[in-house]
């Protein structure tokens, strides 16, 4: 047992020696991580031997990981709480609109914000009450703690609780998958990952598009953040990666993927 332990430690030490700036951990929001991962892939192609580990764990876990130093950079898709903001430096890397999505065969094209609130709180349980077919509505939401969940609660629901019958899924992709499968489902995901398997509804007449988020016609948008401890110099690789994400090339790429650039 001891021998095994020693071997492990030695291996760990060898693997780690001199690599202080060869790899970094970027952890947090499942909404941000697909984009951070994509940029990490591009970055690593340009910088051989550097490794950016993007871990999709959730905003709160990411913020905590960054605060505790488990990860160099935390990713968040929700605003920092006051006590978090006191300890952490934050950089807005992009803005992201929240799209309400339904199955492509659903005849509904537009809902008002009040209708959305009534749907997700369970007051309206049949599609015919908002002008659709006579079918029971299947709600699909995120779970408590996720940045997308809090953004939806704040921006769209204004604090009205979700119906307990709502299905809960662990990521944007999982919600898209369930909605794409179920003709009666409605859910919410980042505009950036809406694809042809689902249909995004316009809200109060405004289409969820990058253009409309940028000019504030579509109001349901939140910031994507990178965070790290205040007063602590990022190591060179982490700094270089943040610079890359904020560069024209990085921002172009994020826009191409469906986010709203901040520079």
């Amino acid at each position, binding site marked *: 047992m001891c021998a095994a332990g020693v071997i492990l430690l030695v291996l760990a030490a060898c693997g780690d020696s001199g690599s202080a700036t060869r790899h970094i951990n970027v952890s947090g929001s499942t909404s941000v991580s697909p984009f951070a991962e994509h940029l990490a892939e591009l970055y690593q192609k340009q910088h051989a031997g550097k490794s950016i580990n993007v871990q999709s764990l959730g905003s*709160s876990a990411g913020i905590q990981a960054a605060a505790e130093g488990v990860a160099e950079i935390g990713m968040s898709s929700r605003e920092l709480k006051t006590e978090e903001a006191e300890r952490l430096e934050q950089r807005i890397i992009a803005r992201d609109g929240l799209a309400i999505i339904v199955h492509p065969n659903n005849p509904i094209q537009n809902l008002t914000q009040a209708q959305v609130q009534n749907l997700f709180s369970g007051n309206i349980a049949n599609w015919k009450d908002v002008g659709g077919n006579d079918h029971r509505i299947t709600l699909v939401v995120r779970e*408590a703690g996720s940045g997308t969940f809090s953004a939806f609660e704040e921006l769209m629901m204004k604090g009205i609780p979700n119906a307990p*019958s709502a*299905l*809960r899924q662990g990521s944007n992709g999982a919600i898209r998958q369930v909605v794409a*499968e179920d003709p*009666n489902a409605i859910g919410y995901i980042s505009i950036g990952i809406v694809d042809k398997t689902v249909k995004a509804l316009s809200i109060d007449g405004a289409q969820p598009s990058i253009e409309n988020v940028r000019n504030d016609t579509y109001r349901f948008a939140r910031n994507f953040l990178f965070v790290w401890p205040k007063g602590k110099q990022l190591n060179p690789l982490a700094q270089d990666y943040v610079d890359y994400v904020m560069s024209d090339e990085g921002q172009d790429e994020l826009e191409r993927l469906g986010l709203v650039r901040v520079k």
Partner: protein
Amino acid sequence: MKERIIGLVLAITALAALLALALITFFIFQAGLPLIAKVGLPGFLFNTTWNPTAKEPSFGILPMIVGSLWVTLGAMVIGVPLGLAVTIFLVDLAPERVSAFMRPAVQLLAGIPSVVYGFIGLTLLAPLVRNTLGGPGLSVLTGAIVLGIMILPTIISISEDAIRSVPPALRQGALALGATRWQVIKDIVIPAARSGIIASIVLGMGRALGETMAVIMMIGNSLQLPTSVLDSATTLTSNIGLEMAYASGAHRQALFATGIVLFIIIMVLNGTTTALVRRGLVRR
């Protein structure tokens, strides 16, 4: 001298499992108990609202307890008869060549990763349930069917041991009295192997109760108290698995507290099995 040292080292390795169990218990309880102390045990167990991140948070896990109960019982309804049938088949009916193929097949069933089961439930069974029976498809029924299959190896392997250890004299005696083979199985063999069979069922129950990833994929994870098998539900495990990554502060404590509840239930089930097996051995 050398022998003494070797004996001591071996004794220490033997304590590793016990130490691991102690560490697990300690850290899970340490992380979860503060929350139970804060909201009170009845409030934690019997409140129906789970909203851990609201301005005024609420930490009721009754929906998960009820969800676990439904899904686990459903899995037993499917897994127990099927498992016992296969066991009897293996012991009494199967021709040599068939059982030589069946046994590794059952073992393989145990080796298939739970995420593969979950995937089958998500992509094949859930749409089938939705299109034929209605509801969202991701439901108690979908989860119960797949979990029922997942616990088959546990039920089969342990109850097979129990049935095989029934003394042959008992069977032969009854057959000589003119009973049919089925009557012998039903009235002599199964009652004689009862405690082992119950142990297998209890262990299967523990397995169904403890499964996480497959359940997250299949049952939709809604926070309601289910009223039909076609409703979606959340279990103790699936809620931990779904929210753990996102949790901080009291929310995280509440998930560990959920872990405590799960841990205690499982320990009681394990204790029951051990007691049953021991009783069976003594009686024999």
